[in-house]
């Protein structure tokens, strides 16, 4: 290995392969620009769904909703994830990235795909929503952009895998790959499956839009599309769980409670998460109940079990690390004394709690075969996934950014006071936003709908006043979240492009950088349970987990009760 190709970050001790570093930066920068575009669309879309404002005309609304969905869910998430894959392979394993040239080809394809798709939507000829259900036609470039992006992302996945192979060959690490890299590997495997499904459905659809194929079955399209659409959410879950583990390690020096459990849980993702495309098809015609039940429950909820395990082991490992540092009073001193002013930690913790309580519970409930009847396509659904993919994944990625700015970009974090508050604005705003959407959805308000007052319709319907209140709360809370998003973009862009470089300071010990700095790696002494209670290494976390379970059980039961009140169907 030639040494000029590597640099060691004096703060974190991480070793960066320079070509890999440039790629990570490029992917992260593109991701943040996309987030900005998606965020502007979010602002306008939210202001339209807020009944008191009702800003845009219908055509613009649907156009911008398409822009928002595609950019956020596909382009922002996956671009950032490719940066994470490179970080978890090249940086964490201290190895050169396989074929950086090819990686740039992948990057270029992704960027080209993003531009082509966005131009198609901007032209007004592709307002078909990210799902682009056939036979509603879109400009062929809409599909072409997605295909190019997917091919680029696939190249990124293979480079990640090849880098793992190189690291093994060159013996750059001893024993097994780190847990976080294992989590990234999980994400990568799911991504390969996902992208394959995407190709199976999007290539024919593109040919259909060009007139080379004359019919695509509308039900079959939905089945295959959701094999792409649902499993791509599992890429996000595997990625953000890895980020949680990484942040627990970075901020607290936490080690997993046990490697075996955490890795098995990731393995359950690989084994079962590709199922569950049925979540989206529970009320589609003609699919058998047996298939729906098996698929929607990921074969008996084994992947849900895995998430519940991560939900315990991540905070549990933090608790153990904190207790080992002497925060052993009562059940929760470890949590009270956590660095709540450090956005790397606070964002990660809000992400974890929000993902579990709001996203996780609502997801399992609405993914129950029969309960879906009272939820399908209501605004409850975006309420659920803003809790998973925004509070869960997006906020986790934002938190990680505050670590990457000084280590990867070698810049001081600009506006530290804003950075400190950002996770709270974004996380709390989004939580209220998601809850209000779920509330409105329970009252029957529809998703992807321009006007809940049905202006101009020959027949009418009036939602109860409470539904309007919920949508108003959604609008307000959405604005808080948008401010949180803007704070993130401000801090990131100013730090990266105009920030003081870390080297320009004589020492790293300035207040600005110390906020963002990792605590030194800490190895707890005397094994796990030494500092715990009841023989539990992490008793506080266990109590939190039981609280989660009780909430889950109650909410689940309430929804069955609600379902029992609707018209008998068979």
């Amino acid at each position, binding site marked *: 290995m030639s040494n000029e190709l590597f640099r060691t970050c004096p703060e974190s001790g991480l070793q960066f392969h320079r070509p890999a570093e440039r790629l990570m930066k490029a992917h992260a920068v593109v991701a943040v620009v996309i987030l900005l575009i998606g965020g502007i669309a979010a602002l306008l879309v939210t202001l339209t769904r807020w009944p008191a404002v009702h800003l845009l005309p219908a055509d613009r609304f649907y156009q911008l909703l398409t822009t928002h969905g595609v950019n956020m869910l596909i382009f922002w998430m996956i671009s950032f994830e490719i940066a994470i894959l490179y970080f978890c392979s090249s940086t964490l394993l201290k190895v050169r990235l396989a074929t950086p040239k090819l990686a740039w080809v992948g990057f270029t394809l992704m960027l080209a795909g993003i531009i082509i798709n966005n131009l198609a939507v901007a032209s007004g000829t592709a307002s078909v929503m990210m799902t682009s259900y056939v036979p509603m036609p879109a400009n062929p470039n809409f599909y072409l952009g997605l295909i190019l992006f997917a091919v680029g992302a696939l190249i990124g996945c293979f480079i990640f895998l090849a880098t793992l192979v190189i690291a093994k060959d060159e013996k750059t690490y001893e024993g097994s790959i780190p847990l976080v890299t294992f989590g990234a590997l999980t994400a990568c495997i799911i991504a390969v499956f996902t992208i394959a499904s995407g190709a199976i459905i999007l290539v024919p659809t593109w040919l259909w839009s060009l007139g080379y194929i004359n019919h695509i079955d509308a039900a079959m399209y939905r089945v295959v599309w959701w094999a792409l659409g649902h499993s791509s959410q599992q890429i996000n879950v595997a990625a953000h769980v890895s980020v949680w583990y990484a942040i627990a390690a970075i901020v607290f020096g936490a080690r997993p409670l046990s*490697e075996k459990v955490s890795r098995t849980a990731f393995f359950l993702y690989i084994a079962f998460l590709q199922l569950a495309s049925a979540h989206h098809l529970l009320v589609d*015609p003609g699919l058998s109940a047996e298939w729906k039940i098996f698929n929607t429950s990921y074969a008996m909820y084994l992947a849900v079990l895995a998430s519940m395990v991560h939900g315990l082991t991540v905070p549990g490992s933090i608790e153990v690390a904190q207790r080992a540092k002497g925060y052993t009073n009562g059940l929760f001193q470890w949590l009270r004394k956590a660095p709540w002013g450090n956005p790397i930690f606070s964002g990660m913790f809000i992400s974890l709690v929000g993902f579990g309580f709001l996203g996780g519970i609502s997801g399992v409930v609405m993914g129950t075969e029969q309960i879906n009847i009272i939820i399908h396509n209501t605004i409850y659904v975006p309420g659920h996934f803003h809790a998973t993919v925004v509070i869960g994944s997006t906020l986790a990625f934002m938190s990680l950014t505050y670590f990457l700015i000084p280590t990867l970009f070698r810049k001081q974090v600009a506006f530290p006071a804003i950075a400190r508050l950002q996770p709270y604005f974004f996380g709390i705003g989004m939580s209220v936003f998601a809850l209000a959407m779920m509330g409105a959805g329970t009252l029957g308000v529809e998703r992807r709908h321009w006007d809940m007052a049905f202006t101009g319709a020959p027949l009418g319907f009036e939602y109860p006043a409470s539904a309007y209140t919920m949508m108003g709360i959604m609008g307000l809370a959405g604005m808080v979240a948008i401010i949180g998003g803007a704070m993130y973009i401000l801090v990131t862009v100013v730090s990266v492009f105009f920030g003081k470089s870390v080297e320009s300071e004589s020492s790293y010990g300035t207040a600005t950088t110390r906020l963002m700095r990792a605590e030194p790696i800490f190895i707890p002494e005397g094994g796990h349970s030494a500092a715990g209670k009841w023989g539990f290494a992490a008793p506080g976390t266990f109590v939190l987990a039981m609280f989660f379970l009780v909430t889950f059980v109650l909410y689940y039961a309430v929804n069955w009760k609600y379902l029992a009140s609707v018209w008998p169907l068979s």
Partner: protein
Amino acid sequence: MSAIQPPAELVWWKQPLDKVEGTWIGIALVWSLIMFFMMPFWHVYGKQNLSSEAYRTTPQAYMAKTQAMVDQYTIRTETSAQLPVVRPPPGSDVYLLGRLWQWWPLLELEKGQTYRLHISSMDWNHGFSLQPVNINTQIIPGYEMVLTVTPDTSGEQTIICNEFCGIGHHTMLGKIYVTEGGR
């Protein structure tokens, strides 16, 4: 070592489980199984289950069946567009179609009676969302879905389209009127 470093123990898979993890895994597994068995349980003991009865169809064939029902059972028309309101006999096959941008025809059903409600789309995907009772299903062109439904509340229900279907999506409404038994 920490989660971003290779595990300290070379044979980490032999490391014993911590009690907190073991306990939680046990609890979570039991809960997962309960949730799983709740679904088949409801198929047997619950009243709200979607049948998987569905047929392939074409817009022309489906339109013909719907038209025949409308011709036979229309009892009045509504709005300036003369939308037919159809009152099919209890127990019969009722046809509802979704198209850009209406649910056609309007229906009048009797409380407590059971109907076989067929629904299909003439063009794109639509969403059948019956409010305020809150029943939601996906309507896909080329497929005819059959719901066996027993209205158990009387009054006016509105069918709202809840799958995006183009610029007129928000105007796509229909009605199901439920009358008290025996008229």
